[in-house]
């Protein structure tokens, strides 16, 4: 990671590495985005499912590496993020760590700083959201705080690009003169000071570099499981003695955390003027509605409706525009251009390649808008309120509020939703959430059903679309309750979540959020869709250059008996459904290719309406909504669960449910006289 920019021509000196650390909700990502812009790389930490963001900045003719460490409340090995952050600082030894704190939550945020100081790494403090703090009634004197802590303190308003230059200058200054770093260090409370000394003398001389003896001793006393197992395995001869001490002082953690907060209170006393207790601020006023069990739920439904209204109101005309003004003209222009080329070649390019690229292209407006609205809701602080309101309902499935966020994201695209389950710390609820995400209809599936429903249900199509979405969510709930009771035996998991203050959105943060999510989609799914469209066209053309005798037709005919169970005796329909495994929106592309429009002179919709009775059409739509997740989602499930067993379980679960639902709906439809 640190060698990322080595070999760059900017200079031949060692590139300085600056690491950003901070608790969640301090605006750390905004600062990272402001500093690195698009010169950033988002990947995963080696072998981990935690996002790793690195980037670079040219400042005064020099190049600097930035590492955005995961947001963590502390550096105890409670979570993957915490382990990664401390391992990075201990092993990679960045030149300077920039600790970002939210000025409005200063004391709580400084807790992480006390842990960073214990690692003895050059540290500066970025006092972010000074404007938010001022609105809340805080007055903070950065100079006084700097003197108290003994480390550089720089006030910043990242969202308005204030103080960032000073922050970098201070970091560079410290990187060039690390010997000037003389912080005030927090001390452990008197009661445990001698115990800490005893532990430290027991491990003295036995700790491997780059770990420090004082840090290992402190973490042992805190009961840190990872450090305990390191010591247990590597210092066998003194472990029994250490274990005895630790057992006698099991409650030391209460004292250590309490002591740190006392130290913090002491440090900030002279620097902070606090608001009068009981002052009603904007966040309190908004939360009276936003977190109310009833009104909060109503608001959430409204927000939900708004997200979709905006997405489809603006995106739908854009999609039509892209199709009519770019994709179709380009296709016919290419067709004319290839007039003299062999028929198979123009077919491959126009019906295969261009129609595939067109599918991806026309899908982008929906995705971009959905993520823009969601990014906005996240940035202003609303999403945690939504999680809070949904907590009581998520408990029905043994989940808690946090699981709601990835599920909500799933309406945009299931792929980032699966990755989004990382915010759930415990394995069981995380697994269950991953299994439930594919039941959330993504924009691609919603696009397919909004396009196809009119073929079977005409003017009732809006109602049917609504029923289909409700059907998916009901299935999600039922499956969630059953899996929780049967597979996970109904264990409950703790729900502890910070509710950040509402604040103004930052366009750049939202922009990059959209960029990363949409780019991830293009990268993961785009290639698949184009390649698949081409292959599908080839299969529908070979070996005789005619559809009804093609390889695809033979495969479809072979599957016909299965299709009959849900009234789908036309092999082309079954093949279209199967093609959604590659990407959900492929269904339309496949139907377009298979029901070749020019042959009948009818549009695809008219063609479908003539071929399929409403009961079978409904079965098809239901199956499309519940069918196995697309390839990109399956890949994400494998990555996130790190288990083929659960990945296959998820695919089979969806397959069984969608086929059963298809058969059930078809027969129900016949009974309701939709068979004509």
């Amino acid at each position, binding site marked *: 990671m640190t060698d990322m920019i080595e070999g760059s021509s900017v200079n031949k000196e060692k590139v300085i590495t600056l690491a950003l650390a901070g608790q969640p909700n301090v605006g750390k990502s905004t600062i990272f985005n402001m500093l690195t812009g698009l010169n950033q790389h988002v990947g995963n930490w080696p072998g981990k499912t935690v996002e790793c963001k690195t980037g670079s900045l040219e400042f005064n003719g020099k190049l600097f590496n930035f590492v955005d460490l995961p947001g963590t*409340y502390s550096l105890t090995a*409670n979570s993957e993020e915490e382990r990664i952050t401390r391992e990075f600082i201990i092993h990679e030894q960045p030149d300077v760590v920039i600790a970002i704190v939210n000025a409005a939550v200063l004391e*709580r945020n400084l*807790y992480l700083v006390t842990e960073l100081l214990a690692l003895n790494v050059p540290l500066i403090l970025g006092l972010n959201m000074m404007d938010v703090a001022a609105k809340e009634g805080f007055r903070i004197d950065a100079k006084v705080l700097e003197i108290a802590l003994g480390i550089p303190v720089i006030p910043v308003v990242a969202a308005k690009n204030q103080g960032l230059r000073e922050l970098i200058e201070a970091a560079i200054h410290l990187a060039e003169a690390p010997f000037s770093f003389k912080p005030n260090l927090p001390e452990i409370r008197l009661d445990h000071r001698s115990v800490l000394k005893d532990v430290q003398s027991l491990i003295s001389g036995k700790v491997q570099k780059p770990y420090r003896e004082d840090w290992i001793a402190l973490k042992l006393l805190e009961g840190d499981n990872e450090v305990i197992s390191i010591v247990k395995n590597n210092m066998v001869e003194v472990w029994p003695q250490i274990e005895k001490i630790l057992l006698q002082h099991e409650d030391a953690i209460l004292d250590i*955390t309490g002591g740190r907060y006392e130290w913090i209170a002491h440090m900030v006393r002279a620097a902070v003027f606090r608001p009068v207790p009981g002052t009603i601020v904007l966040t309190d006023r908004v939360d009276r509605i936003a977190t109310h069990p009833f009104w909060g739920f109503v608001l959430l439904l409204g927000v939900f409706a708004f997200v979709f209204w905006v997405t489809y109101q603006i995106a739908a005309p854009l999609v039509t525009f892209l199709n009519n003004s770019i994709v179709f003209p380009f296709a016919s222009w290419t067709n004319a251009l290839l007039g003299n080329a062999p028929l198979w070649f123009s077919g491959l390019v126009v019906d295969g390649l261009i129609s595939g690229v067109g599918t991806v292209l026309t899908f982008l407006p929906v995705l971009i808008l959905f993520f823009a609205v969601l990014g906005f809701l996240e940035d202003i602080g609303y999403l*945690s309120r939504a999680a809070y309101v949904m907590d*009581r309902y998520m408990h029905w499935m043994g989940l808690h509020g946090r699981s709601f966020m990835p599920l909500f994201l799933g309406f945009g695209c299931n792929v980032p939703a699966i990755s989004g389950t990382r915010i759930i710390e415990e394995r069981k609820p995380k697994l269950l959430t991953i299994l439930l995400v594919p039941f959330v209809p993504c924009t691609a599936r919603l696009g397919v059903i909004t396009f196809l429903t009119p073929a079977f249900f005409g003017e009732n199509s809006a109602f049917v679309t609504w029923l289909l979405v409700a059907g998916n969510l009901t299935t999600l709930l039922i499956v969630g309750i059953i899996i929780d009771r049967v597979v996970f035996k109904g264990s409950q998991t703790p729900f*502890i979540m910070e509710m950040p203050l509402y604040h103004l959105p930052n366009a750049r943060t939202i922009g990059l959020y959209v960029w990363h999510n949409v780019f991830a989609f293009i990268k993961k799914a785009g290639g698949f869709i184009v390649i698949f469209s081409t292959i599908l066209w080839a299969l529908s053309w070979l070996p005789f250059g005619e559809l009804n005798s093609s390889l695809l037709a033979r495969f479809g005919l072979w599957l016909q008996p299965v299709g009959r169970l849900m009234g789908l005796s036309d092999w082309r329909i079954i093949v279209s459904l199967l093609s959604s495994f590659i990407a959900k929106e492929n269904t339309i592309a496949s139907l377009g290719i298979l029901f070749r429009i020019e042959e009948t002179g009818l549009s695809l919709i008219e063609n479908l309406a003539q071929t399929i009775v409403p009961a079978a059409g409904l079965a098809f739509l239901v199956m499309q909504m519940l069918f196995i997740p697309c390839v990109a989602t399956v890949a994400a499930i494998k990555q996130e669960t790190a288990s083929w067993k659960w990945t296959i379980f998820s695919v089979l679960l969806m397959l069984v449910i969608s086929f059963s639902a298809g058969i059930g709906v078809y027969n129900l439809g016949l009974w309701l006289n939709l068979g004509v």
Partner: protein
Amino acid sequence: MKNEAKPLSEQRAKSRVLVHSFTGGKAVTNRLLVLGFTIGAEVTVLQNFGTGPIILSVKDSRVALGRGEAKKVMVKVID
């Protein structure tokens, strides 16, 4: 007698309490400690509707806590 330690989940909105002890497991307790729920820390209940999660204010931050977790934090009311 008068000021016994009671579960945080039973405290009404707007009441101010001091953290007394924890009855839950180590993992949850550690997370709560880090967030500022140290022994003796002052906590204000911002929202509690008797069912579902509750919202608290501690060390100038707002924290949502599941009802199950709130039952495992024992507190004393400040008069």
